[in-house]
Structure formats: structure tokens, C-alpha cells
């Protein structure tokens, strides 16, 4: 663990240059805007900015994009509290207690609690990442393609188990993502696949274009259905009330610690911030002495989901770097970025590119503090931004999406693809198909397939290789258990229904 601290200090040397501090500020500021405005979520925001980082140093690029992510996570809670509109899926639970609290005239308290809890959760997550990074990387060194394939299967299976909604729709979302990933050149044989004689499909379908369509255009279409001017419950916050709210906030130590632990667990095991915030809210309601007040403007409800949301967001960087396993849609986009910058995630990354890994981890300490301060300072600004009529905001955001899709590969075809996925995404959302598994499958598709084919090569085509060692057997058993969860809950549901009759 001591060598982790030494590495962290060298990481600070990388992160604390003027250029990187400016990138952090810019990233957080852009992230806050992205989190506040509808149609520009964290995955889409990272996707839009990614093509502009192709020529940057990888460590600068990842600092910029992760800062954006932290900004967007916090920005999402501003709109949840002031407008009852979640700016991000992971801040849906924030509306449950944040908005009632703000409506009761305690907007400053709600915002201060939310930002401080976010900051605490995020920093807790980074500390966990710092302490575990070496160990996880060493553990991941034991992984061969066989274990990797098992881990990917587990990641997909956990979406089916814990994603909520129809398991069939999750399966479809994953398999469509896998199919899209296999379009273009086959990485092993080099032969052209599924291009259907279309010149434009030869280079494959870029996950960035799909993300901009699914998370950008689709959300705009959804917002356009009923474009009503949003009215905030309050627009300003003053320093004395922030300070007094901060004092009260320290009284919630148990809730903070509990939620941060839940968040870290959900961030490291594939689950992601959205699942983490809901789970922490649910557990808080059950075990907190104030549980009965949850949903009626109880500060602890707000603290529970915000803390878990952010600790999951930051701790998700650990499996992303050590295993190449993203636990949220935004982490999946970041992972895609790593591969574009020529960085192969995995345990060897920690030895080969320590500047990159520890520079990123060190930057996370700083950028999350920056995000909390900037969020507190900019609430009045964002409250006003939200009040700009959507007939102005909407077209401007749509235009940003179009330009973002263009910069991916300077291709007109990508613009049409973006529109197509915008419409597809609109219907997927309307019909409750989950979007995150599709993006995850697109980013992981090639690596899942490669891991499978290499495993088969190693074993001479015997599927029994996936139960050949205790490690891979355990992972596979876990994945199988995940697949049984929906069947089990269906049976329980039936039985309960039958009992009632």
C-alpha cells in the first residue's frame, strides 16, 4: 500500500501542471453545462469532446474527459433539485428528496448537501481506488483470455440481473451492440464483415456516433414532446446559508459512510452510478431512523443517493483501467477513448504507463474538489440557463450533436447514422429498452469476441476451458447466477400472486 502512496505523489507531479489544471477547470465547467442541459448527458458530452482529444497527450485527454464526467454528475443534481428534472439518469433519485426540500424553501440546504455529499462520495471513491489499485492490478495479472471472456460475460449478465425492466429487452440491447461492434474489419483474420457492400460500413460503426444519436438526439426528441418552460423553485444561494448548511451536513456521518461504501461496491462490481444511487436510497430508506421520511424532503435521502452516485462514478475507474471493464455508459465511452489513444487497458498498464494511471488518479482528487466549488458558485448561472426557452436551447444542442458526429471521422454517412440512432434511441427509451448495455456491448464487443476466440485456440475448441480453473469457474458461476435472477424473481412474483388469490 505504501508504494501506492508513492505512485500517487508522482501522479500529483503529472496532474498539477498549469495545462492540466486548466483542462480540469474547462472539463468541469463544460461538464456542469452538459449535466444541466437536456440532450447533453455525461456519455454524450464525453463522446462529443472525444474526437477533439485524438491529437492530445493521453493523460491530458483523460484528465479533461473525466473532469467533464464529474462536472456532469454534479450538474445533473442541480436540475434535479431546482427543477425536479433529472439532468442525468443517475440523478433521478436525487429528485425524490431534493426537490421537495427545495420547494419547502430550503434550496440552499438541498444544493449544499447534494454538492458536499457528491464531493465526499467522489473523494471516498478515489481513496479506495488509490489504496486498491496495486492489488487489483496484481490480481488482474492472473487473467488469461479465458478469465477475460468470463468477466465480460459476467458484466453483460449483471445488466440482465440488476438492470431492472424486461430481461429480454436487455438481452436485445446487448446483442444489437455486439452485432454493431462486429461490423467492419475482423481483428483476427482481417477479413471484411457485415459491410453489406456499403463502402461506408467498411470502417465499422463508430460507437461515438451511436452514443451521440442514442443519448443526444433521442433525448432531444423526447424533450421536444412537451417543451414546457422550466421554472426553478429558487435561483440564488448565499454564502452564510451555505456555511450553516455545511455544519449540519457533518451530522450525517453514518449515512455518508454507508452510502459511500455502497457506491464503491457498485462502482467496482459492474453496476454503475445509476444503480448505486437507487440501491443506496433503497437501503437508506430501510435502515435509517429517518427512513419513513424518505421521499418527503428528508436530507438523508438526498445524501444517500448523491454520495453513492459519485463514489460509484469515481471507483468505476478502477475496473476500467485494471480490466478494461466499464461499469457505466460514460465509462464505456471513456474506455473507447483509451483504445483510440492507443492505450490498452489492463493490469500491465499500471507498470507500463504509471504516469497515465497515477496522473489520472491524482487529478480525480483535485477535479472533484474543483467541481464542488464551481457548482456552488455557478448555481444562479445555471438556473438562468435552464430558463432560456427550449426553442433556442434545443436547436443549439442539436447542432452541437451534428458537429460532434461529424468530427468523429469527417463523414456525411455518420450524420445519417446519428439521425438513425436518434430515432431508434427515442423508441428504445419510449419502450423501456435499456441504452447503456448497448453502448457497453459495442465498446466491449471486439474484445469479448477476441477473448473467446483466443480461449478456444488455447483449449483446442473445448468449451470446458471456461470451468477449468477455480477462478474462471467461479466467475462463470456468478454470471450464470445473474442470468437466473430474472427467472427466479418471475417465479417468486407468480407465487406471491397465487398466494394472494
Amino acid at each position: 500500500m505504501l508504494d501506492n502512496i508513492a505512485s500517487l505523489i508522482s501522479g500529483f507531479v503529472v496532474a498539477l501542471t498549469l495545462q492540466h489544471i486548466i483542462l480540469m477547470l474547462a472539463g468541469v465547467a463544460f461538464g456542469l453545462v452538459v449535466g444541466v442541459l437536456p440532450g447533453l448527458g455525461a456519455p454524450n458530452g464525453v463522446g462529443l469532446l472525444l474526437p477533439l482529444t485524438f491529437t492530445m497527450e493521453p493523460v491530458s485527454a483523460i484528465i479533461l474527459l473525466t473532469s467533464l464526467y464529474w462536472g456532469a454528475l454534479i450538474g445533473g443534481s442541480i436540475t434535479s433539485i431546482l427543477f425536479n428534472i433529472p439532468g442525468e439518469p443517475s440523478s433521478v433519485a436525487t429528485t425524490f428528496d431534493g426537490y421537495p426540500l427545495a420547494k419547502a424553501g430550503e434550496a440552499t440546504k438541498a444544493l449544499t448537501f447534494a454538492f458536499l455529499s457528491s464531493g465526499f462520495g467522489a473523494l471516498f471513491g478515489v481513496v479506495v481506488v488509490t489504496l486498491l489499485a496495486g492489488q487489483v492490478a496484481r490480481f488482474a495479472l492472473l487473467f488469461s483470455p479465458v478469465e477475460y471472456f468470463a468477466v465480460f460475460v459476467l458484466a453483460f449478465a449483471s445488466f440482465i440481473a440488476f438492470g431492472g425492466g424486461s430481461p429480454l429487452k436487455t438481452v436485445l440491447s446487448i446483442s444489437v451492440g455486439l452485432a454493431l461492434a462486429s461490423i467492419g474489419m475482423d481483428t483476427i483474420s482481417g477479413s471484411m464483415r457485415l459491410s453489406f457492400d456499403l463502402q461506408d460500413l467498411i470502417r465499422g460503426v463508430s460507437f461515438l456516433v451511436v452514443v451521440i444519436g442514442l443519448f443526444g438526439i433521442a433525448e432531444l426528441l423526447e424533450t421536444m414532446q412537451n417543451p414546457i418552460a422550466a421554472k426553478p423553485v429558487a435561483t440564488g444561494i448565499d454564502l452564510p446559508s451555505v456555511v450553516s448548511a455545511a455544519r449540519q451536513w457533518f451530522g450525517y456521518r453514518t449515512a455518508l459512510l454507508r452510502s459511500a461504501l455502497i457506491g464503491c461496491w457498485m462502482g467496482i462490481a459492474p453496476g454503475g452510478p445509476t444503480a448505486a444511487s437507487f440501491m443506496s436510497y433503497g437501503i437508506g430508506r430501510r435502515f435509517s431512523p429517518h427512513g419513513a421520511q424518505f421521499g418527503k424532503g428528508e436530507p438523508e435521502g438526498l445524501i444517500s443517493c448523491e454520495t453513492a452516485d459519485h463514489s460509484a462514478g469515481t471507483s468505476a475507474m478502477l475496473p476500467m483501467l485494471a480490466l478494461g471493464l466499464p461499469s457505466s455508459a460514460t465509462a464505456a465511452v471513456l474506455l473507447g477513448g483509451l483504445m483510440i489513444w492507443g492505450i490498452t487497458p489492463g493490469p500491465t498498464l499500471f507498470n507500463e504507463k504509471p504516469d497515465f494511471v497515477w496522473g489520472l488518479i491524482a487529478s480525480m482528487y483535485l477535479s472533484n474538489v474543483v467541481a464542488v466549488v464551481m457548482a456552488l458558485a455557478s448555481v444562479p448561472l445555471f438556473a438562468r440557463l435552464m430558463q432560456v426557452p427550449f426553442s433556442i436551447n434545443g436547436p443549439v444542442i442539436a447542432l452541437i450533436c451534428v458537429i460532434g458526429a461529424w468530427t468523429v471521422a469527417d463523414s456525411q454517412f455518420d450524420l445519417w447514422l446519428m439521425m438513425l440512432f436518434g430515432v431508434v434511441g427515442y423508441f428504445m427509451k419510449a419502450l423501456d429498452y435499456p441504452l447503456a448495455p448497448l453502448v457497453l456491448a459495442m465498446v466491449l464487443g471486439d474484445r469479448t469476441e477476441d477473448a473467446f476466440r483466443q480461449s478456444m485456440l488455447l483449449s483446442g475448441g473445448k468449451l470446458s476451458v471456461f470451468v477449468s480453473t477455480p477462478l474462471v469457474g467461479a466467475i462463470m458461476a456468478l454470471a450464470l447466477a445473474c442470468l437466473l435472477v430474472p427467472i427466479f424473481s418471475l417465479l417468486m412474483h407468480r407465487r406471491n400472486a397465487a398466494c394472494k388469490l
Partner: protein
Amino acid sequence: MSHSEHNGLVSRKVAEIAFAILLLGFGVAIIKGAMELDTGWGGSGPEAGYFPLRVGYLIVIASLALLVLEVLKTGHGKALFSREAALNIGLFALPLLALVAVVPFLGLYLAAAAYLLITIGLLGRVNWGISVGVATIFPLILFILFEFFFRTPLPKGPLGPLLGMH
């Protein structure tokens, strides 16, 4: 209208079925595409078509299962969107489609200006002073950002020769 279960354009059930059929078609296309490749085992393990073929099967099986479940469901469910919502979406999506369509001819900056002017001024009924302002200033900011700051030139259409840039 409020008595009926759906008073919109499309009922949930119809949309679910249509979307499942769409996915079914996608799955069949993937299977057909994979069949053109080697789908079996070769010297280096599974061949190029092995994985896509299985994924295609998975899509077909899952969408068929969904289709059957939806067809068997009783009731039409809530309307997916009202007529008004469909109109709003159309008024937003059509200009955007037009924008994408004219990019090869006008370039992005001119197309952006025209798009903003039409959507904000004409369709959004925002006062023309503000509309013209946004439609000039925003493309100008984009121009400065992308041409000089990011050095990722965007297509300029007829503007390129005019400014002596390519």
C-alpha cells in the same frame, strides 16, 4: 377521448410489436451477412463469421420471444405519444434532417446559420432580433473554435473558396 385506453397516434402494443419486428429484421440481416463468411472452426479457432452468426441467432430468438409475449398481451396499453407530441417531434426532426441533408452543399457553417434562423425564428417564434443574433454569433464562434483553436476544420461549402480556405 379520455375513455379510450389510447387517444394518441400509436398504441404501446403496436409500437412494441413494430419495434420487435424491426429487431427481428436486423437479426436476420446479421445472420445473412455472417453466412457469407466462414462461420465454423478454422486453424485459428472460430472463423470470422462464427461470433456474428451466434449474435444474430440471439437477436432473432429474443425478438421472436418478445413478439410472442406482446401479441399475447391483452389491452393496448397507454398511447405512446399524443398527436400534439408527434407534431412537436416532427417539427424538430424535419429541420434537423434537412440540416444533415444540405451539409454536403452548404458546408456546416452556412447550414448551421440557416438551421438556427429557421428553427429559432420561424418555428420557435422567438423575436427576430434574437434569432438573427444567435444564427450569426453561434456559427461564428464555431468557426473560430474549430478552424483556429481546435484545428479540426469543418466543411465550409461555398464559404471555403470565398475566404480562400479549403
